[in-house]
């Protein structure tokens, strides 16, 4: 009896009447009501009071609605006897169909858009990579072009020297200090005050890092410094030396000097010598 009183006071019966209850609780309340007349009576009392509360809060619907509602039910009056209670009203089925289609359409459209987006992204990446490649190639070609243009300029310069009649060529031959066969060819233009060494025909022993060859002009018995050079077998150009003021020279000579050159030639190390 105590249990039943507690059950009533728990408030579950009120929630049952208000329809605010889980299906399991609902079944439980119905079982309790069937077994205990006290609970059944309490439920009935709550239901009546809520029914009266609803009546007090009643709102009269518009008058046309009565015939509309009754017609909607009574039109198929004869057929309704066959209706299974569990059948959903037809209205619900009609609503469900049209919403299905647009949903699918948007799903596919979205998927298609996404696929298109990814495809264009990949195409764009490929195109970008190719563009980069082309740009690199253009840069390489430009630098090659530049190089060749430089080379052509340079070669034309050298060709100019050979054509220029003011240049005189002189072969400096080996002295006792140098190995037999050592030779240096120079070109001298007194008019242009230029002296050049033909590196292509240079035949000199390789100098070490501490030493360099130095070119001298002997003018009126005195040596004049014309600059230093290395015996580099790879170089093939005409190396331009320091400007020479004298119009007449006795001879040209090359000595081996400490790197950077000396003020006065070390006569012991004279390698080649040549006279006009």
């Amino acid at each position, binding site marked *: 009896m105590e249990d039943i009183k507690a059950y009533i006071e728990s408030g579950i019966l*009120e929630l049952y009447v208000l*329809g605010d209850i889980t299906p399991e609780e609902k079944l439980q309340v119905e079982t309790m009501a069937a077994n205990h007349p006290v609970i059944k009576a309490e439920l009935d009392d709550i239901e009546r*009071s*809520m029914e*009266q509360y*609803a*009546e007090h809060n009643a*709102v009269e*619907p518009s008058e046309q609605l009565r015939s509309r509602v009754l017609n909607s039910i009574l039109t198929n009056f004869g057929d*309704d006897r066959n209706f299974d209670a569990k059948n959903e009203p037809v209205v619900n089925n009609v609503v469900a169909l049209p919403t299905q289609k647009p949903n699918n359409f948007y799903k596919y459209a979205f998927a298609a858009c996404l696929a298109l987006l990814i495809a264009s992204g990949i195409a764009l990446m490929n195109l970008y990579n190719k563009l980069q490649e082309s740009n690199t190639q253009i840069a390489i070609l430009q630098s090659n072009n530049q190089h060749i243009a430089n080379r052509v300029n340079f070669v034309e310069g050298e060709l100019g020297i050979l054509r220029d009649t003011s240049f005189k060529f002189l072969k400096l031959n080996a002295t006792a200090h140098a190995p037999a066969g050592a030779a240096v060819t120079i070109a001298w233009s007194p008019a242009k005050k230029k002296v050049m060494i033909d590196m292509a025909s240079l035949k000199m022993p390789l100098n070490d890092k501490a030493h360099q060859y130095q070119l001298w002009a002997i003018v009126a018995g005195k040596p004049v410094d014309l600059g230093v050079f290395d015996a580099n077998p790879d170089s093939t150009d005409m190396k331009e030396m320091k400007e020479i003021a004298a119009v007449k020279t006795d001879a040209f000579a090359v000595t081996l000097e400490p790197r950077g050159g000396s003020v006065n030639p070390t006569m012991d190390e004279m390698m080649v010598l040549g006279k006009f």
Partner: protein
Amino acid sequence: MSKKRKISLSEEELVLALRNREKIAIEALYDMYSSSLYGVISRIITDTAAAEDVLQETFVKIWHSFSSYSTEKGRLFTWMVNIARNLAIDKLRSKDFKNQNKNQELENNVTFIDEQRNTVYKPELLGIKELVETLKPEQKSILDLVYFKGYTHVEAADELGVPLGTIKTRLRMAILQLRKHFN
């Protein structure tokens, strides 16, 4: 209100007639309960046309699924009002109804707000005044949230910021007050 005499039957007669699917049963059902049910529906759905649609759906559903009702489970009205409330809440939460509501004109909102603020004279609500004095404000607000607005007691606890136990107690006290008042 209506010139035509309204049909009224006892609950036992009505249930029997509905079970036999007699024409008079549905007419009597409408006359006896439409205003009580509409009172609940129209508080959940303020739009008149939509509320009337739900009332129609409610009667259609009552008629078609009447075989699932049994007198042992409780009173007829309790069963019907739950159908009405559930249909109204379904409607309120349906996609169509939400979309439709977004496009409400300003004009409609004026009457809507008027109705909410109770500035419109409603003769059918006259009897409520004495009831309001019977219920304490906090009891009435909870009862109306659950009974008329379709909140669960859990949602009502959230809305009012009150513990679940208190909600249950207040609901019970409110209904006890009503029982005292009506009997």
